[in-house]
């Protein structure tokens, strides 16, 4: 006799978790692919989209082969006898997670699991990989339009292996900063701050787009931008709603908070454009920027702030990033680096802001997990405005400092290695032409002018007459 699933598996939790993961996956493909595809010039659409798709695929492969367990597995020990030292809590063993038991056993994190999960490992591995996979797609926005395609194919797996896994283990895998009490609900630091920093460093090292491309750098399809942006907004319901790892009350509270912060941030940007710019007009792309800032800023704390905190975080982060976008961008070093889509602002600064604001707005009454008695109070985070304690803010600041410095330095080193192996920029001849030179494809081929080559085959088709 067979039974369909083991008794530790809760089908509701398993369902929501894999649905949430799918929503996050959609945010990458096609979300980011068409959002960025619509923002670039026509000559760069294919290159941009292919970097998005290949980036996603490369992360999936290295994730299962070693990167998942580096991020969430058994800790490696590098630092002597103190069990809580930094070097003993920085990274997990790089072992694969693809065996039958690696996929179907109950998921348990060796370190720092607050509650055992009520689903199997494949669910958790897949949920986590879509987060890892979107991160390079975010910093793609900084380097598009000139990064050598082969260099991208090398940089993505190396970056995941050397940078993402470390930050993830430190904050989520039960590592050093998690033990200190720093928090990152869904990846404001691990994903967005890291992507912003990496994008900025890479844009600086690789060098700018051609002057002519920067001069004529208008978006080619705002409707596609809208499609991508809509998928991002609603897909984030999975991004934040999946991170309590249970289909419980905190999951849906996080979803509601996410949407509140996003709406507040979007409207803040729209109104600031309308009243504070020289042209005094609301713009669609400004609205999308605001939307992204809100989504990013709520990410470090979606299930730990209440609705008022979410609205406040959206409003504050949007204001800060709006000012950065229009004014900080004009001063060094920002003015000297061609971060093509402004990822350092909408993901870097927004993620940093959100990660610090958690320390202010986290409401201890927002329980991620419920306490079972006096000995086990529920799990929540203590923000300054509710408890008067600066402790959380301090831990958030330290963790942010690590993420920024570590990510910048290692990204820089990886890029220098790739520069020697394969080069970082496409040739100037390729940059002038774009997609056709690099991929022999264009985004809208013209049937009138394209003639099929090749002997026989497609020409010699006769109607069969039966």
């Amino acid at each position: 006799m067979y039974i369909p699933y083991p008794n530790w598996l809760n089908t509701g939790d398993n369902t929501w978790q894999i649905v949430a993961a799918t929503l996050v996956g959609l945010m990458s493909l096609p979300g980011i692919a068409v959002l960025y595809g619509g923002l670039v010039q026509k000559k760069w659409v294919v290159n941009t989209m292919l970097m998005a798709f290949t980036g996603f695929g490369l992360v999936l492969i290295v994730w299962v082969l070693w990167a998942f367990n580096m991020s969430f597995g058994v800790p490696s020990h590098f630092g002597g006898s103190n069990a809580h030292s930094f070097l003993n809590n920085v990274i997990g063993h790089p072992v694969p997670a693809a065996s039958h038991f690696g996929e179907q056993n109950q998921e348990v994190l060796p370190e720092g699991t607050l509650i055992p999960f009520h689903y199997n490992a494949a669910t958790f591995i897949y949920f986590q990989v879509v987060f890892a996979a979107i991160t390079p797609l975010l910093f793609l926005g900084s380097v598009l339009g000139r990064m050598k395609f082969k260099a991208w194919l090398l940089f993505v797996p190396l970056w995941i292996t050397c940078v993402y896994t470390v930050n993830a283990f430190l904050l989520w895998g039960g590592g050093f900063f998690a033990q200190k009490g720093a928090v990152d609900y869904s990846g404001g630091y691990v994903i967005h701050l890291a992507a912003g920093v990496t994008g900025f460093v890479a844009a600086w090292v690789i060098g700018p787009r051609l002057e002519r491309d920067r001069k004529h750098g208008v978006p080619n399809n705002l409707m596609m931008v809208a499609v991508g942006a809509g998928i991002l907004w609603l897909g984030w319901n999975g991004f934040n709603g999946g991170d309590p790892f249970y289909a419980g009350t905190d999951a849906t509270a996080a979803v509601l908070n996410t949407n509140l912060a996003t709406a507040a941030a979007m409207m803040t940007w729209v109104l600031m454009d309308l009243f504070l710019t020289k042209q005094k007009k609301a713009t669609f792309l400004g609205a999308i920027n605001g939307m992204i800032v809100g989504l990013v800023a709520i990410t470090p704390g979606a299930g730990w702030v209440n609705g008022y905190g979410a609205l406040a975080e959206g409003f504050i982060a949007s204001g800060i990033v709006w000012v950065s976008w229009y004014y900080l961008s004009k001063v060094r070093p920002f003015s000297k680096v061609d971060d093509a889509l402004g990822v350092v602002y909408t993901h870097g600064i927004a993620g940093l802001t959100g990660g610090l604001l958690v320390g202010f707005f986290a409401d201890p009454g927002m329980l991620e997990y419920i306490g079972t008695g006096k000995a086990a109070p529920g799990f929540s985070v203590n923000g300054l405005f509710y408890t008067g304690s600066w402790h959380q803010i301090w831990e958030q600041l330290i963790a942010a400092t690590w993420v920024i410095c570590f990510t910048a330095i290692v990204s820089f080193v990886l890029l220098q290695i790739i520069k020697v192996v394969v080069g970082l920029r496409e040739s100037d001849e390729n940059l002038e032409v774009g997609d056709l030179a690099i991929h022999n494809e264009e985004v809208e081929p013209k049937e009138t002018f394209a003639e099929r080559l090749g002997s026989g085959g497609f020409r010699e088709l006769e109607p069969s007459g039966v």
Partner: protein
Amino acid sequence: MKLVVAVVKPFKLDDVKEALKTLGVHGLTVTEVQGFGRQRGHTEVYRGAEYEVEFVPKVRLEIVVDDDQVEEVTNAVVDTAGTGKIGDGKVWVLPVDDVIRVRTGERGHDAL
């Protein structure tokens, strides 16, 4: 025979087309073009970056007519396409050596 080329504002195309039909002009070719003369362009803003667009969308009409129809055709274009503002466009006239109807091979006046 002459080739009359007219560059006019896109929203005036319908009026010009109807006026030409009234005159008995049987065919014309239209393309969408960008151009400027004295008309100034405009500014577009994407993600906070300003872009100057010097060109203005126009439509270009090409009509081949008999010599004796040139004046009434150019007058029709000028009368219907004009708004009195800068950017109304221009008309110019070129000589045509020959015209051939592709379907029948007719040449010259018979091809018009």
